[in-house]
């Protein structure tokens, strides 16, 4: 008891604090000595490709995975020592839904709520509230196996909220969902954020990170390669706009040589050439001026995808 109280009384600014956090599986270094602080009420993202170490980091934060070295405190408690105490205060949404398909929607919520030591009456009330929040009211008595992918995801999120967590961890919340389902989910998460819940999420979707995160770290091969708000990262590592030019895969490299000098920077991808410039239209005009005739062209705002490309030399997906 005295030990658990220690975490509550000790003053802390960061709800999550990692120093030289490392996880090694045999010879494989999944997380390689990362540092980060996540503050109360903040919405924080780990952005990176598959295998970057995002999920491993999340499992360490949720005290489900023992770190190899470094320090990691969640709500002032050491994750290696206080697993159950930490998990009691967290909401966890794993990458796969892992719902109980044999139970009905409502019972999935109540059985999970019981794991946290709440009374039956309390979990029933809370489950009713969350059915509305997750927009699953009409599905209350339905078996989980009959739900759509988006509904299952919302149920998993509702389940993670059964203990009214202060910190909500979401591992790739919208992977595999169609655009409409993703927007519904983002809207729900945004509401949580407005209510002051600290959100920590991993994603390999730029738009998701831009929509939901106040601050994020870009992770690649177990290390943090950049940190900041989506806007500041774009400012720091990219230009205001990007021109995407397609010349056909055989001519892209040749066209890129002709484009040298236009914009701040060029990036040649297998299917297109990216011209980084603050004024996209002007850059496009200069290209046409040089006699280049792209089969298609697009001027768009810079995104985190461009930041990632700049930092790692690789696209985020594939």
């Amino acid at each position, binding site marked *: 008891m005295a030990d658990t109280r220690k975490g509550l009384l000790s003053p802390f600014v960061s709800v999550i604090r990692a120093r030289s956090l490392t996880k090694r599986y045999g010879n494989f270094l999944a997380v390689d000595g990362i540092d980060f602080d996540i503050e109360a009420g903040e919405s924080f993202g780990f952005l990176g490709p598959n295998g970057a170490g995002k999920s491993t980091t999340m*499992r360490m934060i949720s005290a489900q995975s023992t770190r190899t070295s470094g320090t990691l405190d969640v709500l002032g408690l050491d994750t290696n020592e206080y697993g*159950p105490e930490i998990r*009691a205060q967290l909401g966890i949404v794993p990458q796969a839904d892992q719902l109980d398909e044999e139970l009905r929607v409502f019972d999935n919520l109540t*059985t*999970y709520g019981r*794991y*946290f030591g709440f009374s039956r009456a309390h979990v029933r009330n809370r489950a009713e509230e969350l059915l509305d929040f997750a927009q699953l009211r009409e599905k209350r008595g339905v078996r989980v196996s009959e739900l759509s992918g988006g509904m299952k995801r919302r149920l998993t999120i509702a389940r993670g909220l059964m203990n009214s967590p202060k910190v909500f961890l979401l591992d790739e919340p919208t992977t595999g969902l169609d655009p409409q389902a993703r927007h519904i989910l983002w809207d729900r998460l945004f509401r949580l954020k407005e209510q002051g819940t600290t959100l920590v999420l991993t994603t390999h979707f730029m738009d998701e990170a831009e929509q939901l995160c106040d601050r994020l770290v870009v992770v690649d091969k177990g290390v943090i390669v950049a940190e900041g708000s989506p806007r500041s990262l774009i400012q720091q590592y990219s230009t205001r706009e990007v021109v995407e030019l397609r010349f056909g895969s055989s001519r892209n490299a040749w066209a890129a040589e002709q484009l040298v000098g236009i914009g701040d920077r060029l990036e040649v991808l297998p299917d297109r050439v990216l011209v980084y410039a603050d004024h996209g239209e002007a850059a496009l005009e200069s290209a046409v001026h040089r006699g280049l005739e792209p089969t298609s062209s697009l001027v768009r705002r810079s995104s985190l995808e461009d930041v990632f490309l700049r930092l790692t030399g690789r696209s985020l997906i594939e």
Partner: protein
Amino acid sequence: MTTAVKARRWGWWFVAEHRVSHIRAYWITLLVTSLGSPFVYLLGLGLGLGILIDENQGGAGVGGVPYLTFVTPALLLSAVMQGSSQENTFGTFGGFKWTHWYITQYASPITPAQMVLGSQLGILVRTSITAACYVVVIAVAGIAPLGRALLLLPVAMLLSVAVGFAVTSWVATQVDDRGQLSFVERFVVTPLALFSGTFYPLEVLPAYLQWIGWISPLWHAVELGRWVMYGADIPGWRLVVHVLFLVALAAVTAALSIRTFERRLDK
């Protein structure tokens, strides 16, 4: 923090509760098979095989009692063993791979030890229903007075837990199901029912096969069952050994299961 403290203390109970909530989905089937199978087995063995054996024994019966009396505790206990074994095989493996119960519980304050103990308690509820149905049939059919038949329940529960933890301690180490789960079910657990002094006294087996009985939890439970139900002539020291064997098996394999769960969940 108060709920975390409550979960620390009662987590095993919540796990058992979840397990039992699943029985609601198939309680009619469970009740019908639990009542139906003792009826069918006792009728078939008691009237058919029992009459044949009793006639051949010239009225001496088996171990001094009619064959039906002799075989009844064994039938009850082998049904409990198979129930516990099945639930632990597919429940435990499924908890990691199919239903993900354990993965989900690990996102809450529930500890691996609580999962192991709570699951076994939940399974015990199910096997106790099986045993209780047998007891009812035994009493109604007049094979033993109700008071005696009820004494089979604690023996059945001890067996369920011992077999259950033993099976779980192995199944939890299995990462992929390449048919080995059903194999063990069919070729290890089920045959145990034939070599554990179930349908005939263990002493009837040739000496070189009797060791199967000695290491079989079913044999130890069956000896206890015969003693409680009709006072079979078993020396006191052997009764103590039977109880100790089952308790030790449960304790050791429970500890092994907990260790395996802890390692498997902490990835």
